[in-house]
């Protein structure tokens, strides 16, 4: 949409931007066509729509996970049989 206020965050060839944008639109259709209830999230054009998913991952998804100990659950002792 030429009137869109969304600006690309990645300056590249117009052809590549357009291809990434077309792929984004296809992805939005898939994400929004879920058979689930209508309380779910909605997806569409934003500042990242000019990025291919692999570019998006390479730039923005750069946190490494770590294995953490499980939060200990409360221990419940059975109540002994009492008269």
């Amino acid at each position, binding site marked *: 949409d030429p009137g869109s206020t969304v600006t690309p965050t990645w300056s590249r060839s117009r052809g590549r931007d357009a291809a990434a944008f077309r792929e984004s639109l296809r992805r939005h259709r898939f*994400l929004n066509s879920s058979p689930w209830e209508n*309380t779910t*999230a909605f*997806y569409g054009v934003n500042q990242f729509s000019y990025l291919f998913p692999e570019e998006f991952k390479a730039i*923005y*998804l750069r946190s490494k996970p*770590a*294995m*953490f100990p499980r*939060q200990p659950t409360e221990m419940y002792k059975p109540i002994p049989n009492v008269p």
Partner: protein
Amino acid sequence: LPLRFDWRDKHVVTQVRSQQMCGGCWAFSVVGAVESAHAIQGEPLEVLSVQQVLDCSYKDDGCGGGSPLNALRWLNKTQVKLVEDSEYPFKAQNGLCRYFSSSQSGVSVKDYTSHDFSEQEDEMARALLTFGPLVVVVDAVSWQDYLGGIIQHHCSSGEANHAVLVTGFDKTGRIPYWIVRNSWGRSWGVDGYAHVKMGSNICGIADSVSAVSV
């Protein structure tokens, strides 16, 4: 637990920032948690330096990526004071670590805890109330296209790749959700925030949870 709680209502959460083209989400989330923990202690809410963490947390790779756990370990071990953002501003690129004299004002981390709260999200909510906003690492691949609503599908646990800050939760509606501050600017999502369904470890939100005390 209250039905709704958000640390923003207590005015202890700084504005959403933009990491721009820098893979520094891990530093934004940790600094956000330190800012809030400091304000929860009754101190003024200050915007602290993300660039200082990017440049100085030596086990991480600055804008090339990092781990909130490494940053917390570094802050705790060195007792380094995080200075104000205006003192050490964000440049969206790696730089040389700047050192400050011990008389420089700043905020240091007293302690931190990290846990896996999967299948125990009510416990995670208690930790949020007790300690302040929580640093979590999520699978955010589908967040590229997120505009609003409650994220319930299209992401997995066990594939974490993005660090964010949980500031609250809302259980007043049919679908309870976490209120999550991102670092992709205010134009992304719901004024820079995402809403993620509570109770099913959506996007792995409960897998890697850290809390900070200052």
